[in-house]
Protein backbone atom coordinates (compact mmCIF):
# COMPACT_ATOMS: atom_id res chain seq x y z
CA UNK A 1 0.00 0.00 0.00
CA UNK A 2 1.48 3.32 -1.01
CA UNK A 3 1.68 5.94 1.75
CA UNK A 4 -1.14 8.51 1.95
CA UNK A 5 -0.42 11.46 -0.33
CA UNK A 6 -0.22 14.95 1.16
CA UNK A 7 -2.60 16.29 -1.45
CA UNK A 8 -5.00 14.39 -3.58
CA UNK A 9 -7.11 16.27 -6.14
CA UNK A 10 -9.80 14.65 -8.27
CA UNK A 11 -11.50 16.67 -11.02
CA UNK A 12 -11.11 19.99 -9.26
CA UNK A 13 -12.79 22.92 -11.03
CA UNK A 14 -13.20 26.59 -10.16
CA UNK A 15 -15.31 29.13 -12.02
CA UNK A 16 -15.33 32.89 -11.99
CA UNK A 17 -18.71 33.73 -13.40
CA UNK A 18 -18.96 31.98 -16.77
CA UNK A 19 -15.22 31.58 -17.20
CA UNK A 20 -13.59 28.52 -15.74
CA UNK A 21 -10.37 29.34 -13.97
CA UNK A 22 -9.50 25.69 -13.35
CA UNK A 23 -11.13 22.83 -15.16
CA UNK A 24 -11.03 19.27 -13.95
CA UNK A 25 -7.56 19.05 -12.43
CA UNK A 26 -6.40 15.74 -10.97
CA UNK A 27 -3.05 14.93 -9.40
CA UNK A 28 -1.46 13.78 -6.16
CA UNK A 29 1.55 15.04 -4.32
CA UNK A 30 3.49 12.79 -1.96
CA UNK A 31 5.33 13.64 1.20
CA UNK A 32 8.76 15.18 0.61
CA UNK A 33 8.16 16.20 -2.98
CA UNK A 34 9.50 19.54 -4.22
CA UNK A 35 7.10 20.65 -6.91
CA UNK A 36 7.28 23.71 -9.17
CA UNK A 37 4.09 25.09 -10.62
CA UNK A 38 4.75 26.93 -13.88
CA UNK A 39 2.72 28.42 -16.68
CA UNK A 40 1.88 31.75 -18.25
CA UNK A 41 0.16 34.38 -16.14
CA UNK A 42 -3.56 33.79 -15.90
CA UNK A 43 -3.11 30.04 -16.19
CA UNK A 44 -4.63 29.48 -12.75
CA UNK A 45 -1.52 28.99 -10.59
CA UNK A 46 -2.64 31.33 -7.81
CA UNK A 47 -6.18 29.90 -7.83
CA UNK A 48 -4.76 26.40 -7.50
CA UNK A 49 -2.49 27.40 -4.60
CA UNK A 50 -5.41 29.11 -2.86
CA UNK A 51 -7.40 25.87 -3.16
CA UNK A 52 -4.47 23.82 -1.86
CA UNK A 53 -4.14 26.19 1.12
CA UNK A 54 -7.82 25.59 1.90
CA UNK A 55 -8.58 29.30 1.62
CA UNK A 56 -10.72 28.90 -1.49
CA UNK A 57 -13.27 26.09 -1.79
CA UNK A 58 -13.35 24.40 -5.22
CA UNK A 59 -16.64 24.52 -7.11
CA UNK A 60 -16.37 20.93 -8.23
CA UNK A 61 -14.37 17.80 -7.51
CA UNK A 62 -12.87 16.27 -4.39
CA UNK A 63 -9.82 17.41 -2.52
CA UNK A 64 -8.06 15.59 0.32
CA UNK A 65 -5.25 16.68 2.59
CA UNK A 66 -3.52 13.67 4.16
CA UNK A 67 -6.39 11.53 2.99
CA UNK A 68 -8.96 13.62 4.86
CA UNK A 69 -11.33 16.27 3.54
CA UNK A 70 -10.29 19.89 4.12
CA UNK A 71 -13.09 20.41 6.60
CA UNK A 72 -11.13 18.25 9.06
CA UNK A 73 -8.67 21.13 9.53
CA UNK A 74 -10.93 22.95 11.95
CA UNK A 75 -8.71 25.03 14.20
CA UNK A 76 -6.27 27.64 12.98
CA UNK A 77 -3.57 25.88 14.99
CA UNK A 78 -4.09 22.60 13.13
CA UNK A 79 -4.05 24.44 9.85
CA UNK A 80 -0.86 26.34 10.71
CA UNK A 81 0.85 23.07 11.67
CA UNK A 82 -0.12 21.52 8.36
CA UNK A 83 0.29 24.42 5.90
CA UNK A 84 2.71 27.33 5.67
CA UNK A 85 2.32 30.02 3.03
CA UNK A 86 4.86 32.42 1.56
CA UNK A 87 4.02 35.03 -1.03
CA UNK A 88 5.74 38.18 -2.30
CA UNK A 89 7.79 40.29 0.04
CA UNK A 90 4.84 42.49 1.05
CA UNK A 91 3.64 39.89 3.51
CA UNK A 92 5.53 41.22 6.51
CA UNK A 93 4.42 43.88 8.97
CA UNK A 94 6.81 46.68 7.99
CA UNK A 95 6.89 48.84 11.13
CA UNK A 96 7.60 45.89 13.47
CA UNK A 97 11.14 44.74 14.30
CA UNK A 98 12.33 41.64 12.40
CA UNK A 99 12.11 39.40 15.45
CA UNK A 100 8.34 39.90 15.85
CA UNK A 101 7.79 39.08 12.21
CA UNK A 102 9.74 35.84 12.68
CA UNK A 103 7.96 34.91 15.89
CA UNK A 104 4.61 35.49 14.17
CA UNK A 105 5.14 31.91 13.00
CA UNK A 106 4.50 30.83 16.60
CA UNK A 107 1.26 32.75 17.05
CA UNK A 108 -0.83 29.67 16.25
CA UNK A 109 0.90 27.74 19.04
CA UNK A 110 0.95 30.49 21.64
CA UNK A 111 -1.83 31.28 24.05
CA UNK A 112 -3.22 34.78 23.89
CA UNK A 113 -1.45 35.65 27.14
CA UNK A 114 1.88 34.43 25.84
CA UNK A 115 1.57 36.42 22.63
CA UNK A 116 0.71 39.56 24.61
CA UNK A 117 3.68 38.97 26.89
CA UNK A 118 5.98 38.45 23.92
CA UNK A 119 5.19 41.92 22.67
CA UNK A 120 7.10 43.26 25.67
CA UNK A 121 9.40 40.35 26.55
CA UNK A 122 10.29 38.14 23.63
CA UNK A 123 9.15 34.53 24.03
CA UNK A 124 10.91 31.59 22.34
CA UNK A 125 13.64 34.02 21.40
CA UNK A 126 16.24 31.28 20.81
CA UNK A 127 13.96 29.80 18.20
CA UNK A 128 13.87 33.10 16.32
CA UNK A 129 17.62 33.59 16.73
CA UNK A 130 18.30 30.13 15.37
CA UNK A 131 15.96 30.62 12.41
CA UNK A 132 17.50 33.99 11.58
CA UNK A 133 20.94 32.42 11.84
CA UNK A 134 19.95 29.78 9.30
CA UNK A 135 18.83 32.41 6.79
CA UNK A 136 21.90 34.54 7.49
CA UNK A 137 20.17 37.51 9.15
CA UNK A 138 21.23 37.09 12.76
CA UNK A 139 22.53 40.64 13.07
CA UNK A 140 19.24 42.18 11.86
CA UNK A 141 17.10 40.81 14.69
CA UNK A 142 16.02 44.20 16.08
CA UNK A 143 16.00 46.08 12.77
CA UNK A 144 12.75 47.63 11.55
CA UNK A 145 11.49 45.20 8.90
CA UNK A 146 10.56 47.92 6.40
CA UNK A 147 14.21 49.05 6.35
CA UNK A 148 15.36 45.68 4.93
CA UNK A 149 15.88 45.05 1.21
CA UNK A 150 13.41 42.92 -0.73
CA UNK A 151 15.66 39.85 -0.62
CA UNK A 152 16.26 40.23 3.10
CA UNK A 153 12.51 40.55 3.72
CA UNK A 154 11.92 37.28 1.90
CA UNK A 155 14.57 35.66 4.09
CA UNK A 156 12.70 36.95 7.15
CA UNK A 157 9.58 35.30 5.71
CA UNK A 158 11.58 32.06 5.39
CA UNK A 159 12.68 32.38 9.00
CA UNK A 160 9.02 32.75 9.97
CA UNK A 161 8.26 29.48 8.18
CA UNK A 162 11.17 27.81 10.01
CA UNK A 163 9.62 28.85 13.30
CA UNK A 164 6.14 27.80 12.21
CA UNK A 165 7.40 24.34 11.05
CA UNK A 166 4.43 23.39 8.86
CA UNK A 167 4.42 19.99 7.12
CA UNK A 168 3.77 21.57 3.72
CA UNK A 169 4.94 24.91 2.32
CA UNK A 170 2.94 26.62 -0.42
CA UNK A 171 4.86 29.40 -2.14
CA UNK A 172 3.01 31.78 -4.47
CA UNK A 173 5.50 33.58 -6.73
CA UNK A 174 7.86 34.05 -3.77
CA UNK A 175 10.54 35.81 -5.84
CA UNK A 176 8.57 37.66 -8.50
CA UNK A 177 9.56 41.11 -7.23
CA UNK A 178 13.28 40.37 -6.89
CA UNK A 179 16.15 40.64 -9.37
CA UNK A 180 17.32 37.30 -10.87
CA UNK A 181 20.41 36.81 -8.71
CA UNK A 182 18.49 37.55 -5.49
CA UNK A 183 15.64 35.34 -6.71
CA UNK A 184 17.95 32.37 -7.19
CA UNK A 185 19.40 32.90 -3.70
CA UNK A 186 15.97 32.77 -2.14
CA UNK A 187 14.71 29.77 -4.11
CA UNK A 188 17.93 27.88 -3.40
CA UNK A 189 17.60 28.63 0.30
CA UNK A 190 13.89 27.70 0.34
CA UNK A 191 14.49 24.32 -1.31
CA UNK A 192 17.49 23.57 0.91
CA UNK A 193 15.56 24.37 4.09
CA UNK A 194 12.55 22.32 2.95
CA UNK A 195 14.79 19.31 2.38
CA UNK A 196 16.56 19.75 5.72
CA UNK A 197 13.20 19.90 7.51
CA UNK A 198 11.69 17.00 5.51
CA UNK A 199 8.85 19.21 4.36
CA UNK A 200 6.85 19.19 1.15
CA UNK A 201 7.05 22.23 -1.13
CA UNK A 202 4.78 23.47 -3.89
CA UNK A 203 5.94 26.74 -5.43
CA UNK A 204 4.55 28.69 -8.36
CA UNK A 205 7.29 30.34 -10.38
CA UNK A 206 7.78 32.65 -13.29
CA UNK A 207 11.24 31.37 -14.07
CA UNK A 208 11.47 28.01 -15.83
CA UNK A 209 15.22 27.96 -15.28
CA UNK A 210 14.86 28.07 -11.51
CA UNK A 211 12.19 25.36 -11.69
CA UNK A 212 14.48 23.05 -13.64
CA UNK A 213 17.51 23.73 -11.51
CA UNK A 214 16.07 23.29 -8.01
CA UNK A 215 12.85 21.27 -8.19
CA UNK A 216 12.18 17.56 -8.66
CA UNK A 217 8.81 17.73 -10.35
CA UNK A 218 7.15 20.31 -12.58
CA UNK A 219 3.43 20.80 -13.03
CA UNK A 220 2.67 23.11 -15.94
CA UNK A 221 -0.70 24.83 -16.15
CA UNK A 222 -2.22 26.51 -19.17
CA UNK A 223 -5.72 27.93 -19.44
CA UNK A 224 -6.72 26.24 -16.21
CA UNK A 225 -5.65 22.78 -17.33
CA UNK A 226 -2.61 20.64 -16.71
CA UNK A 227 -0.35 21.02 -19.73
CA UNK A 228 2.16 18.50 -18.41
CA UNK A 229 3.10 16.97 -15.05
CA UNK A 230 6.52 15.33 -15.16
CA UNK A 231 9.66 14.64 -13.14
CA UNK A 232 12.07 17.43 -13.93
CA UNK A 233 14.47 15.30 -15.99
CA UNK A 234 11.72 14.32 -18.42
CA UNK A 235 10.68 17.88 -19.28
CA UNK A 236 11.83 18.84 -22.79
CA UNK A 237 12.59 22.27 -24.16
CA UNK A 238 9.98 21.71 -26.83
CA UNK A 239 7.26 21.30 -24.18
CA UNK A 240 8.37 24.44 -22.44
CA UNK A 241 8.35 26.58 -25.55
CA UNK A 242 4.90 25.22 -26.44
CA UNK A 243 3.67 26.15 -22.97
CA UNK A 244 4.52 29.81 -23.31
CA UNK A 245 4.28 30.30 -27.07
CA UNK A 246 0.68 31.24 -27.64
CA UNK A 247 0.39 33.17 -24.42
CA UNK A 248 3.35 35.35 -25.29
CA UNK A 249 1.64 36.32 -28.51
CA UNK A 250 -1.52 37.07 -26.63
CA UNK A 251 0.35 39.19 -24.10
CA UNK A 252 2.11 41.04 -26.89
CA UNK A 253 -1.20 41.70 -28.54
CA UNK A 254 -2.62 43.07 -25.32
CA UNK A 255 0.30 45.44 -24.83
CA UNK A 256 -0.36 47.03 -28.22
Amino acid at each position, binding site marked *: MSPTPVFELKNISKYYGEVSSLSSLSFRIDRGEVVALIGPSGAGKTTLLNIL*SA*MLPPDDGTFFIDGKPVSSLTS*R*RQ*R*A*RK*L*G*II*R*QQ*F*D*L*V*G*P*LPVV*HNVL*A*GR*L*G*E*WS*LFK*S*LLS*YLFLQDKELAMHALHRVGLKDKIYEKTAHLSGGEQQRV*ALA*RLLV*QKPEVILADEPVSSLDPARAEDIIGMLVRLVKEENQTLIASLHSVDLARKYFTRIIALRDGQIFFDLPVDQVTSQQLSDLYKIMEMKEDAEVC
Partner: protein
Amino acid sequence: MNAQVEHETKTTRRRPGFIAFSFLLAVTLIAASWIYILFVEEASLFALFSEKNLEHTREFLFSMMGIGVEEPAFFSKESWMNALRLTYETLVMSILAIGFSVIGMVLTVIPASANYADGTLMLAKKWYSRLVYGVIRILYVFSRAVPELIWAMLIIFIFKPGILPGAVALALHNFGILGKLCAEVIEDLDMRPIRSLASSGAGKTQILIYGIIPMVMPKFITYILYRWEVIIRTTIVVGFVGAGGLGQQFKLSMSWFHYTEVTLLLISYFILVVLSDFISEMLRKAVQ
Protein backbone atom coordinates in the same frame (compact mmCIF):
# COMPACT_ATOMS: atom_id res chain seq x y z
CA MET B 1 -6.88 84.15 -11.81
CA ASN B 2 -9.38 81.68 -10.44
CA ALA B 3 -11.29 81.78 -13.68
CA GLN B 4 -8.22 81.05 -15.68
CA VAL B 5 -7.20 78.16 -13.48
CA GLU B 6 -10.69 76.76 -13.60
CA HIS B 7 -10.70 77.04 -17.33
CA GLU B 8 -7.40 75.22 -17.63
CA THR B 9 -8.58 72.26 -15.59
CA LYS B 10 -11.90 72.22 -17.33
CA THR B 11 -10.41 71.74 -20.76
CA THR B 12 -8.00 69.00 -19.69
CA ARG B 13 -10.53 66.69 -18.00
CA ARG B 14 -12.72 64.17 -19.68
CA ARG B 15 -15.99 65.00 -17.92
CA PRO B 16 -16.22 68.73 -17.57
CA GLY B 17 -19.89 68.75 -16.50
CA PHE B 18 -19.46 68.82 -12.75
CA ILE B 19 -16.41 71.04 -12.87
CA ALA B 20 -18.18 73.57 -15.09
CA PHE B 21 -21.14 73.49 -12.72
CA SER B 22 -18.83 74.01 -9.73
CA PHE B 23 -17.16 76.89 -11.47
CA LEU B 24 -20.50 78.58 -12.14
CA LEU B 25 -21.62 77.91 -8.59
CA ALA B 26 -18.40 79.38 -7.20
CA VAL B 27 -18.71 82.53 -9.31
CA THR B 28 -22.37 82.95 -8.35
CA LEU B 29 -21.61 82.45 -4.67
CA ILE B 30 -18.74 84.91 -4.71
CA ALA B 31 -20.74 87.55 -6.58
CA ALA B 32 -23.85 87.11 -4.45
CA SER B 33 -21.88 87.21 -1.19
CA TRP B 34 -20.05 90.38 -2.09
CA ILE B 35 -23.23 92.06 -3.29
CA TYR B 36 -24.91 91.06 -0.06
CA ILE B 37 -22.09 92.39 2.10
CA LEU B 38 -21.66 95.64 0.19
CA PHE B 39 -25.26 96.54 -0.60
CA VAL B 40 -27.60 94.68 1.75
CA GLU B 41 -25.47 94.94 4.87
CA GLU B 42 -24.17 98.23 3.50
CA ALA B 43 -20.71 97.61 4.77
CA SER B 44 -18.47 100.20 3.25
CA LEU B 45 -14.79 99.66 3.00
CA PHE B 46 -14.24 103.40 2.76
CA ALA B 47 -16.15 104.06 5.93
CA LEU B 48 -13.59 101.87 7.65
CA PHE B 49 -10.91 104.34 6.70
CA SER B 50 -12.73 107.43 7.90
CA GLU B 51 -10.86 110.03 9.92
CA LYS B 52 -12.58 108.99 13.10
CA ASN B 53 -11.93 105.31 12.60
CA LEU B 54 -8.27 105.78 11.78
CA GLU B 55 -7.84 107.85 14.92
CA HIS B 56 -9.55 105.13 16.92
CA THR B 57 -7.41 102.40 15.37
CA ARG B 58 -4.24 104.33 16.08
CA GLU B 59 -5.27 104.81 19.66
CA PHE B 60 -6.00 101.10 19.99
CA LEU B 61 -2.67 100.05 18.50
CA PHE B 62 -0.77 102.57 20.65
CA SER B 63 -2.42 101.40 23.81
CA MET B 64 -1.66 97.79 22.82
CA MET B 65 2.00 98.75 22.48
CA GLY B 66 1.84 100.57 25.79
CA ILE B 67 2.53 104.01 24.34
CA GLY B 68 1.05 106.58 26.70
CA VAL B 69 -0.07 103.89 29.11
CA GLU B 70 0.88 104.47 32.72
CA GLU B 71 1.84 101.00 33.85
CA PRO B 72 2.22 98.74 30.82
CA ALA B 73 1.70 95.11 31.81
CA PHE B 74 4.88 93.91 30.19
CA PHE B 75 7.00 95.78 32.71
CA SER B 76 5.25 94.15 35.61
CA LYS B 77 6.65 90.92 36.94
CA GLU B 78 3.28 90.00 38.35
CA SER B 79 1.61 90.18 34.95
CA TRP B 80 4.33 88.01 33.43
CA MET B 81 3.93 85.41 36.17
CA ASN B 82 0.20 85.44 35.65
CA ALA B 83 0.58 85.03 31.89
CA LEU B 84 3.02 82.17 32.46
CA ARG B 85 0.56 80.41 34.75
CA LEU B 86 -2.23 80.84 32.22
CA THR B 87 -0.02 79.54 29.41
CA TYR B 88 0.69 76.45 31.48
CA GLU B 89 -3.03 76.03 32.15
CA THR B 90 -3.72 76.33 28.43
CA LEU B 91 -1.09 73.70 27.66
CA VAL B 92 -2.66 71.31 30.17
CA MET B 93 -6.08 71.97 28.64
CA SER B 94 -4.80 71.09 25.18
CA ILE B 95 -3.27 67.83 26.45
CA LEU B 96 -6.49 66.86 28.23
CA ALA B 97 -8.43 67.70 25.08
CA ILE B 98 -6.32 65.62 22.72
CA GLY B 99 -6.25 62.80 25.30
CA PHE B 100 -10.06 62.68 25.58
CA SER B 101 -10.53 62.78 21.82
CA VAL B 102 -7.96 60.01 21.32
CA ILE B 103 -9.76 57.83 23.87
CA GLY B 104 -13.04 58.41 22.03
CA MET B 105 -11.40 57.71 18.68
CA VAL B 106 -9.65 54.51 19.80
CA LEU B 107 -12.89 53.12 21.22
CA THR B 108 -14.82 53.68 18.00
CA VAL B 109 -12.39 53.65 15.09
CA ILE B 110 -12.33 49.94 14.24
CA PRO B 111 -16.09 49.45 13.84
CA ALA B 112 -16.12 52.81 11.99
CA SER B 113 -13.90 51.44 9.23
CA ALA B 114 -15.68 50.27 6.10
CA ASN B 115 -13.40 47.25 5.74
CA TYR B 116 -14.25 46.08 9.25
CA ALA B 117 -17.96 46.62 8.64
CA ASP B 118 -17.96 44.47 5.49
CA GLY B 119 -15.85 41.80 7.16
CA THR B 120 -12.64 42.02 5.11
CA LEU B 121 -10.45 43.34 7.93
CA MET B 122 -10.96 40.65 10.55
CA LEU B 123 -12.22 38.05 8.06
CA ALA B 124 -15.46 37.83 10.00
CA LYS B 125 -18.74 39.69 9.76
CA LYS B 126 -21.57 40.24 12.19
CA TRP B 127 -25.10 41.17 11.23
CA TYR B 128 -24.97 44.42 13.17
CA SER B 129 -21.58 45.68 11.91
CA ARG B 130 -23.17 47.78 9.15
CA LEU B 131 -25.51 49.40 11.63
CA VAL B 132 -22.74 50.19 14.14
CA TYR B 133 -20.63 51.58 11.29
CA GLY B 134 -23.43 53.92 10.23
CA VAL B 135 -24.16 55.13 13.75
CA ILE B 136 -20.51 55.93 14.52
CA ARG B 137 -20.01 57.67 11.19
CA ILE B 138 -23.06 59.88 11.87
CA LEU B 139 -21.59 60.69 15.30
CA TYR B 140 -18.29 61.66 13.65
CA VAL B 141 -20.02 64.00 11.19
CA PHE B 142 -22.09 65.56 13.96
CA SER B 143 -19.12 66.04 16.27
CA ARG B 144 -16.94 67.56 13.57
CA ALA B 145 -19.54 69.86 12.01
CA VAL B 146 -20.12 71.75 15.27
CA PRO B 147 -17.25 74.17 15.96
CA GLU B 148 -15.33 74.03 19.23
CA LEU B 149 -16.73 77.34 20.42
CA ILE B 150 -20.33 76.18 20.04
CA TRP B 151 -19.53 72.98 21.91
CA ALA B 152 -17.95 75.14 24.60
CA MET B 153 -21.06 77.35 24.83
CA LEU B 154 -23.18 74.25 25.45
CA ILE B 155 -20.74 72.55 27.81
CA ILE B 156 -20.34 75.61 29.99
CA PHE B 157 -23.95 75.21 31.05
CA ILE B 158 -23.04 71.91 32.65
CA PHE B 159 -19.50 72.39 33.95
CA LYS B 160 -18.30 75.19 36.14
CA PRO B 161 -15.71 77.43 34.48
CA GLY B 162 -12.21 75.94 34.39
CA ILE B 163 -9.97 74.01 32.07
CA LEU B 164 -12.09 70.85 32.06
CA PRO B 165 -15.07 72.27 30.11
CA GLY B 166 -12.65 73.76 27.59
CA ALA B 167 -10.89 70.44 27.19
CA VAL B 168 -14.21 68.60 26.81
CA ALA B 169 -15.44 71.06 24.18
CA LEU B 170 -12.21 70.77 22.18
CA ALA B 171 -12.33 67.00 22.52
CA LEU B 172 -15.92 66.80 21.29
CA HIS B 173 -14.98 68.56 18.05
CA ASN B 174 -11.70 66.74 17.49
CA PHE B 175 -13.18 63.32 18.23
CA GLY B 176 -15.03 63.40 14.91
CA ILE B 177 -12.05 64.69 12.94
CA LEU B 178 -9.60 62.16 14.39
CA GLY B 179 -12.15 59.38 14.01
CA LYS B 180 -12.66 60.13 10.34
CA LEU B 181 -8.93 60.45 9.60
CA CYS B 182 -7.96 57.31 11.50
CA ALA B 183 -10.80 55.22 10.06
CA GLU B 184 -9.43 56.11 6.64
CA VAL B 185 -5.99 54.88 7.72
CA ILE B 186 -7.50 51.51 8.63
CA GLU B 187 -9.43 51.42 5.36
CA ASP B 188 -6.21 51.98 3.39
CA LEU B 189 -4.40 49.23 5.29
CA ASP B 190 -2.31 46.75 3.28
CA MET B 191 -4.19 43.47 3.74
CA ARG B 192 -1.38 41.18 2.59
CA PRO B 193 0.54 41.04 5.88
CA ILE B 194 -2.72 40.42 7.73
CA ARG B 195 -3.68 37.48 5.55
CA SER B 196 -0.17 36.18 6.00
CA LEU B 197 -0.45 36.38 9.79
CA ALA B 198 -3.76 34.54 9.60
CA SER B 199 -2.15 31.80 7.56
CA SER B 200 0.57 31.47 10.22
CA GLY B 201 -2.20 30.60 12.64
CA ALA B 202 -2.78 33.98 14.33
CA GLY B 203 -6.18 34.63 15.91
CA LYS B 204 -8.13 37.91 15.93
CA THR B 205 -6.47 39.49 18.94
CA GLN B 206 -3.05 38.40 17.76
CA ILE B 207 -3.70 39.91 14.31
CA LEU B 208 -4.71 43.12 16.08
CA ILE B 209 -1.52 43.27 18.15
CA TYR B 210 1.03 42.05 15.61
CA GLY B 211 -0.59 43.31 12.40
CA ILE B 212 -3.12 46.11 12.59
CA ILE B 213 -1.79 48.15 15.51
CA PRO B 214 1.86 48.29 14.40
CA MET B 215 0.82 49.21 10.87
CA VAL B 216 -1.60 52.02 11.77
CA MET B 217 0.30 53.39 14.78
CA PRO B 218 2.76 55.72 12.99
CA LYS B 219 -0.02 57.38 10.99
CA PHE B 220 -2.32 57.63 14.01
CA ILE B 221 0.39 59.37 16.04
CA THR B 222 1.13 61.76 13.16
CA TYR B 223 -2.54 62.75 12.90
CA ILE B 224 -2.85 63.08 16.67
CA LEU B 225 0.13 65.42 16.81
CA TYR B 226 -1.23 67.50 13.92
CA ARG B 227 -4.56 67.85 15.68
CA TRP B 228 -2.78 68.78 18.90
CA GLU B 229 -1.18 71.72 17.07
CA VAL B 230 -4.63 72.86 15.95
CA ILE B 231 -6.02 72.38 19.45
CA ILE B 232 -3.28 74.57 20.94
CA ARG B 233 -4.30 77.32 18.53
CA THR B 234 -7.96 76.90 19.47
CA THR B 235 -7.61 76.74 23.26
CA ILE B 236 -7.69 80.51 23.42
CA VAL B 237 -11.09 80.56 21.72
CA VAL B 238 -12.86 78.20 24.08
CA GLY B 239 -11.46 80.30 26.90
CA PHE B 240 -13.61 83.19 25.66
CA VAL B 241 -16.77 81.56 26.99
CA GLY B 242 -15.24 80.90 30.40
CA ALA B 243 -13.41 77.67 29.76
CA GLY B 244 -10.21 78.83 31.43
CA GLY B 245 -6.67 79.48 30.24
CA LEU B 246 -5.32 82.39 28.23
CA GLY B 247 -8.63 82.96 26.45
CA GLN B 248 -10.59 83.71 29.59
CA GLN B 249 -8.06 86.29 30.72
CA PHE B 250 -7.90 87.71 27.19
CA LYS B 251 -11.63 88.33 27.31
CA LEU B 252 -11.45 89.99 30.73
CA SER B 253 -8.55 92.23 29.75
CA MET B 254 -10.33 93.21 26.55
CA SER B 255 -13.47 94.23 28.38
CA TRP B 256 -11.51 96.23 30.94
CA PHE B 257 -9.53 97.89 28.12
CA HIS B 258 -6.25 96.63 29.60
CA TYR B 259 -4.70 96.49 26.16
CA THR B 260 -1.09 96.06 27.27
CA GLU B 261 -2.19 92.93 29.09
CA VAL B 262 -3.84 91.77 25.88
CA THR B 263 -0.52 92.21 24.10
CA LEU B 264 1.26 90.24 26.79
CA LEU B 265 -1.28 87.41 26.53
CA LEU B 266 -1.00 87.40 22.75
CA ILE B 267 2.78 87.12 23.01
CA SER B 268 2.46 84.16 25.39
CA TYR B 269 -0.10 82.57 23.09
CA PHE B 270 2.13 83.04 20.06
CA ILE B 271 5.14 81.54 21.83
CA LEU B 272 3.03 78.57 22.93
CA VAL B 273 1.85 77.98 19.35
CA VAL B 274 5.36 78.16 17.90
CA LEU B 275 6.75 75.95 20.65
CA SER B 276 4.07 73.30 20.23
CA ASP B 277 4.58 73.26 16.45
CA PHE B 278 8.24 72.62 17.10
CA ILE B 279 7.66 69.84 19.66
CA SER B 280 5.08 68.18 17.47
CA GLU B 281 7.41 68.21 14.47
CA MET B 282 10.18 66.66 16.56
CA LEU B 283 7.90 63.90 17.82
CA ARG B 284 6.54 63.25 14.33
CA LYS B 285 10.07 62.73 13.06
CA ALA B 286 10.83 60.37 15.96
CA VAL B 287 7.86 58.19 15.05
CA GLN B 288 8.82 57.75 11.41
